[in-house]
């Protein structure tokens, strides 16, 4: 049983390491900001997630106690990662796109970040 758990922990650590590596590689390799935005999300979700699961298993199986810190970290990650990505995307649209270069925004007038131009446009 102990060994199974240790293998499991190792597996999650390897998975997280691989995704961390992939995420970092993608950040360097991919061309434009919108594509690059995808790479770190792998590192934050799957990469960090793997470490956290490994840590929880470690606590339960080897230390004999339940640990919930990891859930809290997950919660914070789930809160911060999308916001960060959202802001990066917004900045990108704001700086590199014009209202004309974007697809129609539907009933909500313009794309939010270009909203300021609605009076002038």
């Amino acid at each position: 049983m102990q060994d199974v758990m240790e293998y499991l922990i190792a597996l999650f650590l390897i998975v997280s390491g691989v995704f961390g590596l992939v995420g970092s590689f993608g950040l360097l390799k991919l061309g434009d900001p919108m594509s690059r935005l995808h790479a770190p999300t792998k590192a934050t979700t799957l990469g960090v997630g793997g470490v956290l699961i490994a840590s929880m298993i470690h606590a339960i199986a080897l230390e004999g106690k339940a640990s919930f810190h990891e859930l809290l970290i997950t919660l914070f990650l789930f809160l911060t990662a999308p916001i960060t990505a959202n802001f990066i995307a917004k900045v990108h649209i704001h700086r590199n796109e014009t209202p004309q270069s974007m697809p129609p925004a539907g009933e909500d007038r313009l794309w939010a970040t270009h909203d300021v131009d609605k009076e002038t446009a």
Partner: protein
Amino acid sequence: MSLFLIAALPFLGACFPALLIRAGRNASAMSAGAVSLLALIGLLIHAPSVLRGEVIAARLDWLPELGLNANFFLDGLGLLFAGLILGIGILIILYARFYLSREDPMGQFYCYLLLFQGAMVGIVLSDNILLLLVFWELTSLSSFLLIGYWRHLPEGRQGARMALIVTGAGGLAMIGGMLILGNIAGSYDLTVILQQRDLIQTSPLYLPALILILIGAFTKSAQFPFHFWLPHAMAAPTPVSAYLHSATMVKAGLFLMARLWPVMAGTDAWFYIVATTGLVTMVLGAVIALFKDDLKALLAFSTVSHLGLITMLLGFGTGMAAVAAVFHIINHATFKAALFMTAGIVDHEAHTRDIKRLGGLRRLMPVTFTIAAVASLSMAGLIPLNGYLSKEMMLEEAAHTAWLQSTWLVPALATFGALLSAAYSFRYVAHVFLGPERDDYPSHPHDPGAGMWLAPAFLVSLVVLIGLFPETVAGGIVAAAAGAVTGGDLPEYHLKLWHGLTPAFYMSAVALSGGLMLLWGHAHLNRAWTNSPRPEAKTIFDAIVGTATRISRILTDRLHDGALTRYAAIFVAFTLGLAGYAWLSGTLGPQTRAPLEIAALPLIGWIGVIVSTVLMVAFHRRRLLALILMGVVGLVVSVSFNYLSAPDLALTQISVEVVTIVLMLLALNFMPKETPRESSPVRKTRDAVLSIGAGLGVGGLIYALMRRDFDLPTISEYHLNNSYSGGGGTNVVNVILVDFRGFDTFGEITVLGIAAIVIFAVTQAVLSGPVRGRLLNRKPDAPQSGDAHPLMMVVVTRMMMPVALMVAAFIFFRGHNLPGGGFIAGLIAAIAVVMQYMASGFGWAAERQHVPYHGIIGSGVLVAAVTGMGAWLAGEPFLTSAFGYVHLPGLEKFELATAALFDLGVFLAVVGAVMLALESFSRFAWQPGIAPEHAMDINPARDLDPKNPEEV
């Protein structure tokens, strides 16, 4: 009544008139009068024993290490002066009630007056010269407020400034003199100093001490050449002139000379400096007074002249002259205060103080005329009024005083001074009240109500009574006070009207008849006087002050021109110079510690800091990028604190980092995103040299320090050992903050609060000016984002707020034993709120914020202070903490410490200060009335059919 209470009563009572003015002017005046009366009664209780020759003392060791003790003592001299101050104070309070008009803020007036009264009583009762100096400066400050009371008048403001500069500068000189004196005597207690006559007079420092102290006394008592401020101080309301400039403050200098008479007087230096200055002042003041047309200016210069007379008597250094001086102090206070009050009445009723426009008032104002006539005839020295008695004694003393072997000089000049004095006194009566009635007064004069003439009437009744029965009315107090001046032995003397045909009588007769002749020939003399060139003191004074201002402005403009880089350069260069001096003059011990191998993690951090610093130099022109690079440095520092087992510091650093970055971003919002190129190559080289030098210096210093053991044992050991047993906490950092060095922390949160309030005040000042309009109309230099409040951000921050506050609470509560504490918790709570401001906008957040941040700061400081004062209840010093363990059923045993309450104060102050600063910055961008469009207050049902239009 304890002397402490007598001295403290006016200070304590100063708030009553200011508060009671809401209940009306009578209530305000009555409260001020009651306070003075209470203090006077307390003083008079001691009078019988003091008149018997006893000395009442009250002692309290305040800062014995510095020789500063709150010691008071009351002897004859103190009783005389304190009695004058409090007694005339009551009369002035009565007079001012009717003198001040409805527009004047009377509560403020009485408040200042009582502050002044307290400072004066403090001077005359102090038994410690350091304490005396404190009160001395307080009189300068409070008289500044009183002279400038009519602050809408430029003369009032200028006069107040001039008085403050002259008496304040004199006070500074006196501080030096007093310190020398205390140093010679080996104690700052007057009772000790007064026993050391031989020691002091033989000391080589006697002369400097004497000169410095005399400068203080002469400036205060308006002696030549410092006499010029007194007439300009006449811009004050008349009650102030009557109180400060005739009876009390200008006599403080005389008091001091009299007080130090036993140890200072009797030397040649004393005689020539003091007596000569007095003589010159007496004659000069009298000459100028004779030609003044403004009633108050005339009285002001006559005061200068009489103060000179008393100074001269003190300068003679004989026991009999001391008696005459003390007696004349009493007499002058009575008739001069009365004269000032009558001048005020004339001004109040006729609406002018110009003698040329007055005359013939005796039928229109019979009561005022009687009072003024008696008082000025006493000033002239006419038998049988009290001025005659002391003038006779003065002339008698002058008659046998030789000045540089010349036996005629002093008597002749004294007679001349008395002659002029008689002349201007006669003029005051003749040109104002006698003569034909006129029909062109600015206002039709008539006698005022009893409230205004009662006070001067009381004083002139004293004038007459002392004149007729000197021994009965004033004999006791004169003997007691003169005894205190001379230090015990008094010559045989009699206070009586008729001494026979003495030389003094002839001199007096000459003076009076000469005075009448001068009055007769005044018109001719006046023409000659106005045509002769005279130096104008105010022009000279203004020129000196102007030059000083110019020089300091040049200096300030050079050093303090508003460029932060210049301050930084001066500061760094100075520090480098000091450090260089220390390096060259000191010695360096041997290295005792071996260097450690560098581990991988610190190496990465180190490289990170260096790279970001280098990048910072390269990219500093792009401000946003620079901010990010700064953030990198901050994060590495936080992480390294954590690595080096300082979790408290790491937590603090990281939360401070967040707040700082937010603040900077806010500020950047109003600035160009790029720094303009403005440094010349020379300047860049200078800055490079300075910063590299400073950086290498600090690095070298730290390296040298880390390679050596400390010379002396550090205090850390003590903190570690006593943290749990003494402070009840295992988190040493927190125990240091709230317990060991709690007083520091208390000071720090106070400063933090003040800084935040200053930021708020500056913002307020800027926004109330034209800047506000410019800010509202400014065109941003880059296109602004359309949704300032992105939906996702808004949702998340609102969700995070309770979580973040919970974290703050957690950090706060565990702070005493584990990393955390009020300061960090405060920062986290502030961040929780800042998130709302950032995400949802200032307007949205401000609408939901109901407690003003000022109040939070104030409550924090108060909570900390009250917690600290709680220790007094247990008889312990301020901020002593206590802790205990409580066991409640259902809970584990837990600890309660007063330190936690103190920490709560820290928490509140930090939250308030951070938020107030952020809010102040935000207000620059905020446009009131423009609702944020994209915050979450958009009704999601806006496109559906509105059932209730209010909801949309």
